[in-house]
């Protein structure tokens, strides 16, 4: 794997730090006019999601991490693992709940999502920004109320609970922004 020096640290670069794959978020060059140069770097640990700040002597280097984001189709959940498929190569990957994390709330069979691979093994799963899911449980709708004011909780087929307007009924399919968990609209079948 390639080695990257502090002056190559750009946002998004994946490197190995303390044996974990990490992504550079921010890199600030700090140098007294007549002294040693440093790089203060904000890094996200891709395993834990935690953001940490580290300081390096300028010119130090870190090994690159073999991390890539790949579009995959979510296939099914066998109880222990969720299975994904790379649609061009048909290659399949399995990920446990630790790797899938909160993405599980938005994964519907056959939907596309992003799987982050580290050394060819799933490291994280990111759902599409918008998903369409069926409401499996919510209080009966209030007829005539289309104002969208107020709202009520609705449980979706994946188990996620979102706030929806009062007029939205059980059995309907809605569009949700997975980044905020917010209801966007009803989906006409």
């Amino acid at each position: 794997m390639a080695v990257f020096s502090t002056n190559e640290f750009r946002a998004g670069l994946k490197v190995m730090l303390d044996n974990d794959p990490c992504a550079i978020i921010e890199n600030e060059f700090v140098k007294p006019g007549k002294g040693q140069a440093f790089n203060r770097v904000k890094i996200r640990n891709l395993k834990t999601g935690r953001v940490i700040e580290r300081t390096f002597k300028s010119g130090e280097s870190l090994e690159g991490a073999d991390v890539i984001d790949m579009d995959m189709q979510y296939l099914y959940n066998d109880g222990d693992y969720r299975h994904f498929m790379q649609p061009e190569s048909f290659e399949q990957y399995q990920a446990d709940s630790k790797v899938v994390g909160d993405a599980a709330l938005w994964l519907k069979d056959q939907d596309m999502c992003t799987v982050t691979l580290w050394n060819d093994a799933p490291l994280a799963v990111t759902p599409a920004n918008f998903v369409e899911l069926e409401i499996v449980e919510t209080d009966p709708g209030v007829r005539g109320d289309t104002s969208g004011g107020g709202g009520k909780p609705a449980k979706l087929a994946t188990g996620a609970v979102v706030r929806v307007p009062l007029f939205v009924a059980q059995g309907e399919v809605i569009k949700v922004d997975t980044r905020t968990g917010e209801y966007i609209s009803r989906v006409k079948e």
Partner: protein
Amino acid sequence: MQNQLNWQPSCSIELLQQRARMLQRIRVFFASRNVLEVETPLLSQASGTDPNLEFFSTIYETPPNRQPLFLQTSPEFAMKRLLAAGSGSIFQICKAFRNGEAGRFHNPEFTMLEWYRVDFDLAQLMDEVESLFETLFDGQLGAPQRVSYQAIFEQFTGLDALNFSWDTYSAFAKKENLHDAIAICGDSHVLWLDFLFSFCVQPNLGHGGLCLVYGYHACQSSLARLNSENPLITERVEVFLNGVELGNGYHELTDAAEQNRRFETEIQLRKTASLPMPTKDERLLAALGSGLPNCAGIAFGLDRILTLLAKKSSISQVLSFDIERA
């Protein structure tokens, strides 16, 4: 694809105008004080030796000869040769080049204001710096503060900058969650000073008014003379505003033999660190040998001053084209 390229300047047209006004004011300021504007070569046969300043080098092709030339990291050596030749007080506005330096407040090519005052000591130089900033900022800055390195270092770290103790320095780093400091600095006093000053002291300096820090440790200054009363410190001053380092000045070293010793020490440091080998400026040493007048000098990064004048957050916002677009 060609028109997809970002050809636009990094800064606004208004900033170009503000830069022109700033340059004009500086020239009027020095003209009124009878300081002569000079130009010296950007390309030189010799380079600086400072292990922390990386130079650009190129080859001057004069067949059958190929001569290495260096882009100046500052016009200091050439200006000192003018002083030794009897120029009297001089100033220069020029480009300076430092390889590998790019960031929020760094661009590898930048504009420098450097001036030398014959028969000035550090205190007189600080007076003049304060007057210049009074002019450039239209009196909008609060009262300037002058403080010794030792005092300001102690204020923000509780540590004694002049007397290094690994135990107390590393205990402080642990307490402040600066674990990287221990790994990076080891038992190097100068690295500890650079690290702790950069991250714990400097961000607090010059909020509201100019902050002038003097009395740097001797291990941090290669071209300043030693303080006559305390040989641990040098006659060096650094100028800060809004937590940004703007300038660095000295009561200049005039002793050729001492200068040569410091060059040799730095060349050794470069060798040990496998850095590019410099070409020692023998002409500067010869000039010092023939006699540099007693003088004080200082250099400012003008792009940084403009950044603060224009209330911008990074140097690229005041450059016509930063290195990404150059």
